[in-house]
């Protein structure tokens, strides 16, 4: 009698490894032959369903990330952004203030003194009501910055249209002369019916002082932000005085321009306990700090996994149902149930994995398309952001969906009767 399998000179572990390697290779080979053959329809439809679901997930998550990362008011061209560790962008939406950075004007000066740092500015964001002549008051997002002579962008607006420096700050005494300048976004100007040279009066809202007059130095198109939002740039110290943030020199964040490493080093030195992020790429951890963005991304995740798993389970179940004869043949040649089920599980894994790769690509394209559509219509600039972490995220979600889905095709496979399939 032959016991070739048992009498192999190799160890048990080697045989087990070869067996599993062989089964995986067999599954890959079959999958590829089927995916590239004339019966590829079902595999392609499963891959497409996974891909579209992952793409949808990434687009929604990209929008949530953009929302969490600050949206319009974070549309700056700084190198490094310093924010409080426990920041929440909802604070500026619902009127509840979140944590702010302190001593910002003073530390901005320190940061500017570092080698490799071109400029640093606190950024304070407040909501105010503005009025021009006898027109109706309009609510505008006021963004306080310290400008210099270089063309820079904060909140999508050019800072160099303000007088360089921040004279009202006066080394922390806040008794310097007021420049009284304001740069309006196109939307803010349209709503106020204001143009360059007009006088604008700050009225009420969170801003304590009323009837403070400012001169419109420029009306600018927003760059990289939401053109539909009414935003205005003012000098930081003047907004701090208006809002009461002068006590403690508070600001929502600090932005730094210069060499990446130098700017990051200077920022970390100035605020060792704050979050220091190199801009240009969104910070995905911001999703966890923003309730709305987090909820949006979680909903997208749950919906994505549910849809993806449902589709994978259904289509893979149908595929296995059509493939019962193969399972029966495997049983007839001595492949045990565990091996046969592994073939199904691996097939499902391959399908979801390929779908996830396609989905990540589609997701990146979708985010680009959303931004292009927004730019062409109501909101120029990035309303959704792609992050490199989206790649492993999309793959992981697809594999999780496959894991959730795999019991169904396995159940179908387990019900296969070898006699019914290969008996005469």
């Amino acid at each position, binding site marked *: 009698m032959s016991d070739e399998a048992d009498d192999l000179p190799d160890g048990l572990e080697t045989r087990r490894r070869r067996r599993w390697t062989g089964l995986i290779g067999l599954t890959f080979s079959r999958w590829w032959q089927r995916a590239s053959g004339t019966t590829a329809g079902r595999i392609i439809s499963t891959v497409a369903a996974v891909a579209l679901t992952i793409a949808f997930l990434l687009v929604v998550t990209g929008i949530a990330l953009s929302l969490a990362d600050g949206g319009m008011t974070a549309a700056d061209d700084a190198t490094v952004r310093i924010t409080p560790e426990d920041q929440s962008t909802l604070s500026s939406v619902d009127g509840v203030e979140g944590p702010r950075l302190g001593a910002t004007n003073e530390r901005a000066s320190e940061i500017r003194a570092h080698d490799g740092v071109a400029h640093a500015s606190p950024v304070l964001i407040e909501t105010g009501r503005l009025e021009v002549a006898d027109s109706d008051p309009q609510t505008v997002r006021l963004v306080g910055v310290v400008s210099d002579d270089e063309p820079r962008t904060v909140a999508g607006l050019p800072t160099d249209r303000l007088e360089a420096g921040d004279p009202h700050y006066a080394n922390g005494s806040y008794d310097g002369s007021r420049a009284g300048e304001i740069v309006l976004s196109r939307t803010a100007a349209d709503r106020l019916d204001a143009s360059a040279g007009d006088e604008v009066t700050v009225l009420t809202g969170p801003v304590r002082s009323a009837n403070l007059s400012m001169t419109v130095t420029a009306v600018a198109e927003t760059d990289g932000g939401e053109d539909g939002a009414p935003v205005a740039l003012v000098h930081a110290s003047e907004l701090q005085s208006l809002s009461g943030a002068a006590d403690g020199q508070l600001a929502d964040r600090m932005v730094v321009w210069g060499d990446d490493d130098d700017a990051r080093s200077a920022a970390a030195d100035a605020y060792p306990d704050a979050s220091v992020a190199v801009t240009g790429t969104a910070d995905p951890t911001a999703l966890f700090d923003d309730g709305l963005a987090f909820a949006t991304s979680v909903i997208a995740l749950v919906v994505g996994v549910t849809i993806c798993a449902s589709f994978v389970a259904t289509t893979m179940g149908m595929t296995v149902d059509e493939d019962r004869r193969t399972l029966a*043949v495997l049983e007839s040649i001595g492949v045990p149930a565990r091996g046969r089920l592994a073939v199904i599980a691996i097939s499902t894994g391959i399908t979801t994995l390929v779908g996830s790769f396609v989905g990540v690509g589609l997701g990146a394209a979708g985010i680009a398309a959303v931004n292009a559509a927004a730019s062409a219509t109501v909101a120029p600039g990035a309303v959704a952001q792609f992050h490199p972490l989206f790649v492993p995220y999309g793959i992981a979600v697809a594999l999780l969906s496959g894991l959730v889905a795999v019991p169904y095709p396995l159940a179908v496979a387990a019900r296969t009767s070898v006699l019914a399939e290969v008996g005469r």
Partner: protein
Amino acid sequence: MFNRSAQDSQSSITEADGRESTTAVRLEGVTHQYGSSGGRLRSSDERTVTALRNVSFDVAMGSIVGLEGPSGSGKSTILHAVAGLLVPTDGRVRLCGTDLTALSDAERTRMRRRHIGIVFQRFHLLPSLSARANVALPLVQAGISRSDRRARATTLLEAVGLGDRTTHLPGELSGGERQRVAIARALSTDPDVIVADEPTGELDTATGTDVLELLTDIGRDRAVVVASHDAATLSVADRVITLRDGRVNDVR
């Protein structure tokens, strides 16, 4: 061409009690009833079909036993029982000295992998795998290395006259070539017993003759059980068992 190594080709089996025997397959009073669900009998009120009634016979190493009889006489059921694909309702099936009816599903699968090669009437090759990959398939579960699997499969395909068809898919082969691939697959683990169910049923006469020559060659140092309606196929058997209504009607 298909001779086994000296060690493997010894025409004796060590029985469970240590006796040496030349019997590869032994059926002892095998009865089988199919329940209405198509499987084993589940309850007395199910509509049942008795496929085998108290069937007993031996198959020695180095012999070919033919099973003949009309459709529904129990030929395929016997083959399935010998291959461990079903457990008879009553009686014992011994394969190389081991009582298959006493084993779990996993143990029967292991026995089948080690001792049985199956040739189906409709070949049942995996259409997405090449001829060589189909032949090498049983060796995957045996834990053979990839290079050894390929070498063994290539040798077997050459032995059945398909050395130039190793990379062809089953859909690119004729019926006779597919059956030869199926025979090569059944031989890949060098089993003690080959069961063949209508191996020439889908083939023309000339191709069928080639396949029968292969089976004859294979049967020199193995036990072969072949079920067929075809007299030419049964002519290669050393002994033919005629079944009727699940009973052994004649042995010649």
